[in-house]
Structures are given as structure tokens and as C-alpha cells.
């Protein structure tokens, strides 16, 4: 089992954005979900809106 956090704006499996979960994901599914940012590995506290803006700014 691996710990993941839903980092995308929509639910992943039955887990809501920001929620942490432990699953044995199919490696290919995991790779796609990680690449598009739906989930990340490990535990990540949900970002505040300000953080989201800062992230967007830094991306520009």
C-alpha cells in the first residue's frame, strides 16, 4: 500500500481533493495520475488558496 494525496481539483477514485488515501494502484494508472497532477505520493496538507495563487504566479 502506498500513501497518496488527491492534489487535483476533482475526486480521484472515491477520494475528494485534499484527501489522503492508501491504495495499491496499477503502476500505469499511478503514472498517468501523477503526471497530470491528480494525485501525489505521500502526505501533503491541503494548500490554501493563497498558496495556489503563488504556485500559479511562480509557474508564469
Amino acid at each position, binding site marked *: 500500500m502506498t500513501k497518496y494525496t488527491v492534489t487535483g481539483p476533482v475526486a*480521484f477514485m472515491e477520494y475528494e481533493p485534499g484527501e489522503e488515501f492508501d491504495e495499491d494502484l496499477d503502476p500505469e494508472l499511478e503514472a498517468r495520475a501523477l503526471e497530470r497532477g491528480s494525485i501525489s505520493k505521500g502526505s501533503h496538507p491541503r494548500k490554501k488558496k493563497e498558496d495556489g495563487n503563488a504556485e500559479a504566479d511562480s509557474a508564469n
Partner: protein
Amino acid sequence: MPKRIALTDKIQLDSTDLSDFARQVQFTSDDAQVDVSGFNTLGTNEYLPGPRTQSVTVDFYGSYGTGEVHQTLYTIYKNRTTTALKWRPDGVAVVGVSNPELRGNAKVYSYGPGAQRGSEDTFQVTFMPADAAGFDYFTT
């Protein structure tokens, strides 16, 4: 289940909940009608069901954010990936006899978003079965 207005459907693709980005879903399952008629006094035709063709077509809103429609669908199309598709009428209620879930492993053979000035950005994607199990309804 009583008559319903479709509002709370859940559409999950590649384990990603794209319900909020979809406004219409259409499942079709058609069996070829094979004529096995022989000579008979009434001249009527006789048929047997042949190969079954299934598809699920979804109207998506074009959205290009992290983990949204484009990122989810284009990768699947580009890499010819097989992925799980699920649709059920009530996304809040659990799957059951009165809330069956259509499931199947699917591929996308065509991807064509577009845009028209002043209009909502929507496009259709058709999912075809990727294995012999096809699409089927599950109640558990």
C-alpha cells in the same frame, strides 16, 4: 427508482471524477441482426442476434486545468491507453440495484475538441470497449 431528472450522475474516467465536466452521456449496445431466414410458406424473415457493438459517448466541457478533461483524455487517446470507465445515475448514493453502475475498460479512438466564439466549449468523446467483457451494469 422513480422518474428522474439527470443532475447527479457520476462519470469517472481513469479513476478521475469528471462528472462536473460532463453534461450528457449516452450508452448504446446494439446487436447485429443476422438474417437466418429459410424458405417458408409465409415468406417471413427470421433473425438471430450477431456481434454486439457497444459505446459510451460523453459530452464534455473543454477544460484544460490540472487533472481535468484535456489532461485526462488526451493522454489516454495519444498513448492508446486502456482505461476504466464508470457511469452511474446517482453519484452520491452507493451502487445498487436502483443505482446501477455501467463499467468497462475503454479506449478512445477519436479526440477532437474545438471552440466557437461566444459559446460554451464542449465536445464529444466516444469510448469503445477494450476487451471482450465490454460495458456492463453492476449493482455492487
